[in-house]
């Protein structure tokens, strides 16, 4: 257990100083990895922990990004102030659409979420309410500023995204190891048994869905600030698939798994850019092999540990 803390410590330190040794291109790659890690972690609550198959997560990401873009360009509100607003709009959107569909079983729900994602993307493309700018999207989103310091370069964004990611990991780790975290796991394992044990299953399904969506909305805000221009094509079905694959491949319900998944999915293709088109082939083949030999993901969810009294601990673990 102890050596693990050292490994995490070393990784954290290396990542903290990494921008000083990397050119802007690679820092930007890491920024993307970080953004996808945040998205992956938010989807992990829904897919990994609660077992709700959501293949439309890009929709909530989009709601957050467009909320930030519209309110920033029209009202001039600083993007970082909009973080809670984006969380609320994405969460609200998730709440409204999930109300009638959340009781659906796995595969059916999955199809509906794909539909929702596509509907939203097409609505954005068609310049809904005259606010979204159609296929060209919205441009001229202002740079975020922290205490007057304007975040502009990839290096600056690195620390913004890094901070957000660290906070996310910290909070989600606590959430996992709590009554809430257990409740959604019971839901995934056996819904009838969960309800029969006194868990309000429909409440928890909705709650975890809204929470995951709200977090994706905040990631959308950061994304809008980073890009300064957003368009519907940034939120297509493929994005949802990547987020989904990050969770499943990395390890459902496992924070280290999702982090590794985002490195592999977003970072690795950049490393293998030299192989041009063959890289996607290798990538696909790797995925197939993975799903056959390691179905639970690269770093699967580990059982929670509890502070058992010494006597029980001795004979406890198998």
């Amino acid at each position, binding site marked *: 257990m102890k050596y693990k803390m050292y490994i995490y410590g070393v990784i954290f330190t290396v990542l903290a100083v990494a921008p000083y040794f990397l050119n802007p291109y690679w820092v930007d790659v890491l920024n993307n990895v970080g953004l996808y890690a945040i998205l992956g972690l938010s989807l992990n609550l829904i897919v990994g922990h609660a077992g709700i198959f959501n293949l439309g997560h890009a929709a909530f990401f989009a709601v957050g990004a467009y909320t930030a873009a519209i309110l920033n360009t029209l009202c001039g509100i600083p993007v970082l102030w909009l973080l809670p607003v984006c969380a609320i709009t994405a969460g609200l959107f998730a709440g409204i659409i999930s109300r009638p569909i959340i009781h659906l079983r796995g595969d059916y729900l999955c199809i509906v979420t794909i539909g929702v994602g596509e509907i939203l993307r097409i609505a954005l493309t068609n310049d809904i309410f005259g606010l979204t700018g159609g296929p060209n999207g919205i441009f001229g989103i202002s740079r975020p500023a922290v205490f007057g310091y304007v975040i502009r370069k990839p290096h600056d964004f690195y620390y913004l995204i890094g901070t957000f990611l660290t906070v996310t990991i910290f909070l989600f780790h*606590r959430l996992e190891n709590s*009554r809430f975290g257990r409740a959604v796991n*019971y839901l995934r394992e056996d819904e*009838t048994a969960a309800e029969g044990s*006194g868990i309000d299953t429909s409440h928890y399904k909705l709650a975890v869905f809204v*929470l995951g969506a709200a977090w994706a909305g905040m990631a959308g805000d950061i994304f809008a600030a980073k890009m300064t221009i957003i368009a519907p094509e940034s939120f297509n079905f493929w994005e949802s698939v990547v987020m989904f694959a990050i969770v499943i491949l990395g390890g459902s319900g496992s924070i280290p798994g999702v982090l590794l998944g985002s490195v592999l999915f977003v970072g690795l293709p950049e490393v293998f850019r030299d192989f041009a088109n063959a890289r996607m082939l290798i990538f696909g083949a790797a995925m197939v092999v993975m799903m056959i030999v390691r179905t639970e993901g690269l770093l699967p969810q580990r059982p929670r540990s509890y502070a058992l009294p010494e006597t029980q601990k001795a004979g406890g*673990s198998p």
Partner: protein
Amino acid sequence: MSLLGLANLTKSFGGLMAVNEVSFDVEDGSIVGLIGPNGAGKTTVFNLITGNYRSDRGMVRFEGKDITNWITHRIVKLGIARTFQTIRLFQNLSVLENVLAGCHCRMGSGSLAAMLRTPGERREEKAALARALDELAFVGLAGQEMQLAKNLSYGSQRLLEIARALSSEPRLVILDEPAGGMNGQETEALIGTIRQIQQRGITVLLIEHDMSLVMKACEKIVVLEYGTKIAEGPPEAIQGDPKVIEAYLGMED
């Protein structure tokens, strides 16, 4: 005093009358057995009481309150916990976490309290952990907390289901074939456990095919056949009841 009361409870599936006008009472502090041949509708009665099915007609009362067709988790919170005939544990979670599931409805911390790890949340977690360990010790599964539920033996899985039900602090616990898959020795021990549950002041309603368990443990027995109640009374009376004997032995070749 009657803790649980069923009045003319009726449920049909398509053309099949699974439960037909069934009425009986469960006295507070008693152990009541529900028996009958396969397909008599015993488990359906349980599912109607616990809200897994919606009844067509009739009423379920608990502590004088009409709980007919309440949603399941509310019924659990009110004080009725159950086990399942086909074991329904959270297979990939630890034994301890299975029991903590039962504690859930007596806790209140939400997602925000969890992320902030408030003092109240910590206190609650600690209390739940202690309670879960107590219940595991009660059914005799102490020392296996960190095993995965699926790695337990069949008999132990049944006991774990009982521990999970008890950890929700019920007033009535409903056991659906608790001795299913147990050997003679385990069944003997189970009878002891059921009596201890009663001594804790918890009322027990159970379905069981093992007649020795039913006759030894239950104070009252209700007999169902084809969804209809055919007899009700103390074990001695049931054993001598000609209708019951016919239901069980009538088809003998």
